[in-house]
């Protein structure tokens, strides 16, 4: 039986070259649906206005197909403020305000060997006190308002707050967004956003290469 070391050595490299090269495999229904002109679409999340889609409201259901089809571009995030101090090292804290569990897993996926965010100097930390950015997922559940306020207060400066996923951004079809408690610097749409899109948003928020 091969040892862990030889097993590792004989395994092929998995890690993406993204963000320096294009994402090799995107789950299509997390990217921006664009009008194809093929009929009308009724969006259950009211994300469609005429021919454009408000990505903050889009729940990635695919129900607008074939009138709209996803554009396959990983960049759906909107970065309102950047912080260059985090260019070399960037510590992030995942905060679950009331998620279905999938956004959490997509953020956590960034440490798996396919994305390996540590190669970009990004790592998770165990408390908001040590974090440069708070990554908030989920709607604002009643019981999480106070913990969220406290987590934001505990963040040292400079700092960034991300709303990741339709729930955190707009409430999606589930509940209230987090906007009543905290102002966000970066929004990362999708239900859930895919790890490439989250990674792209993290990079852009620190003015990093992308």
């Amino acid at each position: 039986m091969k040892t862990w070391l030889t097993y590792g050595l004989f395994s092929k490299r998995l890690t993406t070259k993204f963000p320096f090269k294009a994402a090799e495999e995107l789950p299509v229904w997390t990217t921006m649906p664009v009008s194809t002109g093929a009929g009308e679409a009724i969006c259950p999340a009211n994300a469609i206005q005429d021919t454009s889609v408000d990505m903050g409201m889009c729940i990635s259901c695919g129900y607008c197909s074939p009138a709209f089809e996803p554009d396959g571009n990983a960049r759906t995030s909107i970065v309102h403020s950047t912080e260059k101090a985090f260019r070399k090292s960037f510590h992030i804290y995942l905060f679950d305000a009331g998620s279905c569990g999938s956004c959490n897993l997509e953020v956590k996926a960034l440490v798996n060997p396919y994305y390996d965010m540590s190669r970009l100097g990004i790592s998770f930390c165990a408390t908001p006190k040590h974090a440069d950015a708070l990554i908030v997922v989920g709607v604002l559940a009643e019981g999480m308002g106070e913990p969220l306020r406290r987590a934001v207060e505990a963040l040292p400066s400079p700092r960034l707050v991300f709303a990741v996923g339709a729930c955190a951004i707009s409430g999606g079809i589930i509940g209230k967004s987090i906007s009543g408690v905290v102002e966000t610097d970066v929004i990362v749409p999708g239900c859930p956003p895919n790890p490439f899109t989250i990674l792209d948003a993290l990079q852009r928020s620190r003015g990093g290469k992308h």
Partner: protein
Amino acid sequence: MMVGEDVITGVFDSGGRGYEVSYGFGIPSWKKVADHAIEGREDFKACVGKYDDKAEGADVLNFTYGPSTGGLTESIKFNIYTYGERILSLRPEPSYKDRKLQVSGSGLEMANLRIERYCGPLSPFYSGMLAAAVESVMGADQDNDLRLARVIMNEISRISDHIHVIAKLAEGASQNVAYNLLFALREKLLRLIARRFGHRYFFGINGFGGLVRSANFKGISSEVRAIVDEFRQIWIRLENSRIFIDRIQGTATLKRAWMVGPAARASGTHIDARMESSFLRYDDLDLHVSISSGADTLARTLVRVDEISESARIIERAESMIREVPVAGRTTKSEVNGEISVRAETPGGDSLMRVTLAKGIIEKIYIRPSSLQNLAVFAYAIRENLLTDFTFGYEGLGIHISELGGVL
């Protein structure tokens, strides 16, 4: 008597006039119970998520963990009572992130989309249960290809969830190579799901009477098989690691008649909703139910390891039988009325859903998810274990906190 026939497996609070209670693990039926004496029963408490345990005394230290901390993927608070390193008792408070998911009052399309997001990682199970309930109330015979498609989606989801549980255990035991390989394997599986179903968590796919969009089932079993073979290679090395086995053997041991899923099967109980469900039949798929006997985290892990291979085999068999899966479009305008209860074997175990439909609108819905039972298992099983066992007891049960929130 069937296994657990007198066990409470669901409690529907009918508003101050006692309860409607479902007993046993077979086809669900409800009995009105006016007697509040059942409130003291452990199986009742497990169903309603009542955790009132605490410990007092000299030198007993009570501290809290959560609701948000780096060690937890989802928000939950634990009140832990310790004496030195020993955990005397534990009281979970899972309500912090309760979203009070509003499903009643919704039409079928919105109900479906919300139920998919009740617990995202388990979405095909819950959307499949809702679809099966509605189809059954409509009196429609379930299309055989649709049944097989749902079996395939559920079994892929089971493999993904089980790999995740084992990866978390390996992470807790600092088996860095193993957990990286396991998380990579799960990523591979999510990519496969996205390629074939359009979404990494099967959102937007399950519909009523068919799938909402077409999915590609051709050759799916060989792709899944390759992933499962790779998993076996990793597992062979992991089970030979003394460090790993020492952390999970004898940890969080419990045997109770009300336990479900891998926790029940790891204590020698032969229950699996896949053997009984008339809504998602497995009778022609030759299901083998995995059983172990240690009743601890190691035994639960061994059951999961076995189930990963079994799921791959079921997918192979289902793919060989599937022909053309109906595409039903996104909604149905049916004006159906009726009430029905369905159950499914999620990766954590038996979950129960009761739905009342009035004129095609969801009037009432109740879900008793497997995570309720598993959180109760954790609360009881972790007693007399050491603080360092906490991670292994908890992660080994594969609890999804989103499942513990209310569905209104």
